[in-house]
C-alpha cells in the first residue's frame, strides 16, 4: 500500500472516528433531557414561586412554604420556591414572562407593579379570588384599595399578605443613660429633637453616637424626607394623579428639616455607612425602620422598644408598604386555579407570617385572634408596627413610573436628586424644581 493511501486511510479513519465520537457525545448529553422531558402522571403539580425575601423574614417565609408543602404532600401539589435578589426581581420576572417561563406567583409591593399590570405580566385577581372562595370582606379596605390599580380597570393585582410601616426603634440603654422615661417616648417633633440631643454623643465637633440614626445618602434620609414632607402637607401627586408636587414649600421645609439634623441640631452624622449595623451595635439611639428588622435585633438581644412615629407636622402620617402575592401570566392559564388556591392557603394561614415574620396582618380575623398579640416577638417591639397602621398612609404612587416617586429607595431618581441636597451640591430650590419637572413628566406618561 502506498504511503499516500496509508495516510489517506489514517486521516479518513480519524475524521470518521471523530465524527462518530461527536455524534455519540451529543446523543449522550441530550438523552437525559429527552427521557426526563415528560413528567409522569404520578408527579405532583409543582407551583413555582419566586421570593426576594432574604433577611430574617425570609427564613419565616421559607417555613410558611414548607408548611404548605407538608400539608399538601398527599394532595398532588407542591410549591418550589426560588430566591431572587430584590433589585433584579422585576427584570427577571419580565424576562421570564417574555419567554413564557414566568413563575406562577411571587412577591409584590402595593403600588409598585403598575408596569407589570400594564404589560399583562401580572394577572388581575378579582375573578380568581371569587372562584377560590377567599373572603375579601375579611381584608382591611385600605389593604385591598392599595392592591388595586385605578388606571387598569381598578382591578386587584396583588393579594395583600402584610402591612408594614416605618416606626422608630429606640435603644433603651441610651434612654436610661440620658435619664429619659422609656414609657413616654416622643410624640411630637420638639420632644423628638430633645430626646435626640440628650442621647447624642459628640467628640469635638464629630457625632460619634447619633441621637437620630441617619446616613448621608441612600434610603434613610430619603424616606425621612418623604414622611416629614407628607406630615407638613406636601403631596407627591394630587389625588387624581394629574399634578406633581402639591404644596412644594412644605417639601422644601422638609428638606431643611433633614439637613438640620446634621448641621444645626447635630444629632446625626453623614459618616454612617450601614445603618442597620450601626443601630445594632449601639451607634444610634432612635432609628425609624420597618418590622423586617425585628427578628434580627431580637436575636442579637439588642435592648430596644418601638414607639409610634412622632407628629412633626400638621398631619400624623408615616410610610406605608404593603406586601402581597401576585400571579404571573402563564402559557396555560388553567394553572392559575391551582395557584390561587395555594395563595389562598398561605393567606388563610398567615398567622405565623404576621406574628413572627413581618408586618401587621391585613386580615381582620387574624387581628382579632386573642393570641395575636401574645405570639411572636413581644408587643413592646412589635406593637407599634401594628397599631401604627392606622396612620401609615404614605404609600406608592400607582403609575408606570411609580418607582421614581418611591420614598423608600436609595437609588431611584428621588434619592439621587435629594443626595445632592444632603451633600450640599444642590440647593433645596433646585432640587424641588428637578423633582417637580420629572414627576410631572412621569404623571403625564400615565
Amino acid at each position, binding site marked *: 500500500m*502506498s*504511503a*499516500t493511501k496509508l*495516510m*489517506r486511510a489514517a*486521516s*479518513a479513519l*480519524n*475524521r470518521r472516528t*471523530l*465524527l462518530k465520537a*461527536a455524534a455519540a457525545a451529543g446523543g449522550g448529553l441530550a438523552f437525559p433531557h429527552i427521557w426526563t422531558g415528560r413528567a409522569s402522571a404520578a408527579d405532583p403539580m409543582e407551583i413555582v414561586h419566586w421570593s426576594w425575601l432574604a433577611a430574617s423574614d425570609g427564613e419565616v417565609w421559607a417555613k410558611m412554604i414548607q408548611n404548605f408543602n407538608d400539608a399538601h404532600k398527599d394532595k398532588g401539589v407542591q410549591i418550589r420556591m426560588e430566591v431572587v435578589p430584590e*433589585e*433584579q426581581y*422585576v*427584570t427577571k420576572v*419580565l*424576562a421570564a*414572562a*417574555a419567554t413564557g417561563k414566568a413563575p406562577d406567583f411571587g412577591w409584590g409591593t402595593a403600588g409598585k407593579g403598575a*408596569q407589570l399590570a400594564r*404589560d399583562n*405580566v401580572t394577572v388581575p385577581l378579582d375573578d380568581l379570588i371569587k372562584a377560590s372562595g377567599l373572603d375579601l370582606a375579611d381584608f382591611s379596605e385600605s389593604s385591598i384599595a392599595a392592591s388595586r390599580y385605578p388606571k387598569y380597570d381598578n382591578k386587584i393585582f396583588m393579594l395583600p399578605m402584610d402591612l408594614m410601616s416605618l416606626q422608630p426603634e429606640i435603644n433603651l440603654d441610651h434612654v436610661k443613660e440620658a435619664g429619659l422615661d422609656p414609657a413616654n417616648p416622643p410624640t411630637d417633633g420638639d420632644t423628638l429633637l430633645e430626646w435626640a440631643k440628650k442621647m447624642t454623643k459628640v467628640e469635638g465637633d*464629630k457625632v*460619634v453616637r447619633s441621637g437620630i440614626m441617619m*446616613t*448621608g*445618602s*441612600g434610603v434613610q434620609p430619603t424616606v425621612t424626607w418623604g414622611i416629614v414632607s407628607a406630615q407638613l402637607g406636601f403631596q407627591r401627586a394630587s389625588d387624581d394623579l394629574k399634578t406633581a408636587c402639591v404644596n412644594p414649600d412644605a417639601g422644601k421645609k422638609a428638606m431643611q428639616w433633614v439637613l438640620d439634623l446634621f448641621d444645626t441640631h447635630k444629632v446625626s452624622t*453623614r*459618616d*454612617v*455607612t*450601614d445603618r442597620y449595623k450601626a443601630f445594632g451595635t449601639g*451607634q444610634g439611639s432612635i432609628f425609624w425602620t420597618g418590622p423586617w428588622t425585628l427578628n434580627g435585633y431580637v436575636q442579637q438581644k439588642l435592648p430596644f422598644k418601638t414607639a409610634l412615629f412622632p407628629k412633626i407636622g400638621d398631619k400624623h402620617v408615616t410610610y406605608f408598604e404593603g406586601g402581597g402575592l401576585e400571579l404571573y401570566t402563564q402559557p396555560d392559564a388553567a394553572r392559575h386555579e391551582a395557584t390561587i388556591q395555594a395563595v389562598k392557603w398561605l393567606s388563610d394561614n398567615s398567622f405565623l407570617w404576621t406574628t413572627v415574620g413581618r408586618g401587621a396582618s391585613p386580615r381582620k380575623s387574624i387581628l382579632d385572634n386573642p393570641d395575636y398579640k401574645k405570639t411572636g416577638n413581644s408587643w413592646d417591639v412589635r406593637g407599634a408596627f401594628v397599631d401604627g397602621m392606622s396612620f401609615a398612609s404614605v404609600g406608592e404612587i400607582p403609575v408606570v413610573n411609580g*418607582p421614581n416617586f418611591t420614598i423608600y429607595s*436609595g*437609588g*431611584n431618581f428621588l434619592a*439621587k436628586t435629594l*443626595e*445632592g441636597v*444632603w*451633600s450640599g*451640591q*444642590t440647593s433645596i430650590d433646585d432640587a424641588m424644581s428637578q423633582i417637580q419637572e420629572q414627576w410631572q413628566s412621569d404623571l403625564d406618561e400615565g
Partner: protein
Amino acid sequence: MAIAIPDIRIDAGAERREIDGAGYLLVAFFALPFLLFNILPVLFGVYVAFTRWSIVGAPKWEGTKNFIKAFHDQWVRVAFENVLFYGAIIVPCVTVLGLLFALFVNRGYPLSSLARTLFFAPTVVSATVIGLVWVWLLDTQFGLVNHYLGYLGIEPVPWLTSTRWSLVGVSIASIWWDLGLAFVLFLAALQDIPGEIIDAARVDGAGRLQRFRHVILPHLRPVISMVVTLQLIATLRIFSQVYVMTNGGPASSSSSPIYYIYNLAIVQNLFGYASAVALLLFILILAVTVAQRLLLREQT
C-alpha cells in the same frame, strides 16, 4: 545496489482539504457558542440602543433619541467624568506599584517569597469580598485606616461617605485588588531580562538608576504597554467595587458608567437607554485604548 524508494508523492491538496474539514469542526465547538452568546447579543444590543424596550413586547424604534438623552443626562456626564478620574488614579498607581513590588521580589531580598504570595493574593479574591472588606477598613469612625492615620495626627477621613473622598476610597480598594496581576506580569518580564546585559552595564560603570533606566525599562516597555492597556480597560469597566462599597454615592460622586448602565437596565428596566449608554462607553474604551497603544507603541 539500487535501493527502492517508496513512492511518497503526497497529494497536498487532498490532505489540506481533509485537515481543514476536521479543523473547522473542532473550532466550531468554540465558535458557535461564541457567536451565539457573545457576538449576536452585542449586535442585538447595538440595535436595542436605538429603541425603547423593557423586555416585554417588541422594541420600539426611537432613532437617536436615547443618545441625545444621554448627552443631556447629568448622571451620564458624572459617571463618565468619574471613570476618567478612576483611570487617572488607578492606572498609574497599579503600574508603578506593580513594577516596584516586582523589582523588590526580583532582587531576591529576604522574605521576597512571602512578599510574592502576599502581593498576588488579593487578585484571587472576588471583587465583592474585596469591596466588603474595604467598606469596614475605610469606615470613618471605626475603620482601621483612619485608626492608624490617627497615630499620625490625621483627622478621620470620610472615605466612603463624602463626595470628595468616595472616589478615592473606591480607588484604594481597586488598586489593592488589581495590583497582583500587574506585579506578576512585571516579575515575569524582569526574570526574562538576560543577566549578562545587566552585568555588562554594571561593568561599564552604570549605577543602579542608570541600569534601570537604560537597560531594564526598555526591556519592560512591551509589558508596561500591556499592563496599562489591561488596567485602562478594567478601570473603565469598574462596577463591583462601586456597587458594593458606595452604590455610586454619595450623590453619584463615585458612580461609574457600568454602574449607571446596570441601574438603568436591571433596576429601571430601560434597556434601550442603557444600551445607548453602553455603546457610548464602548466607543470611549476603544478610543482610549487606540490612543494609548499609539502613545506607547512597542519598538520592534
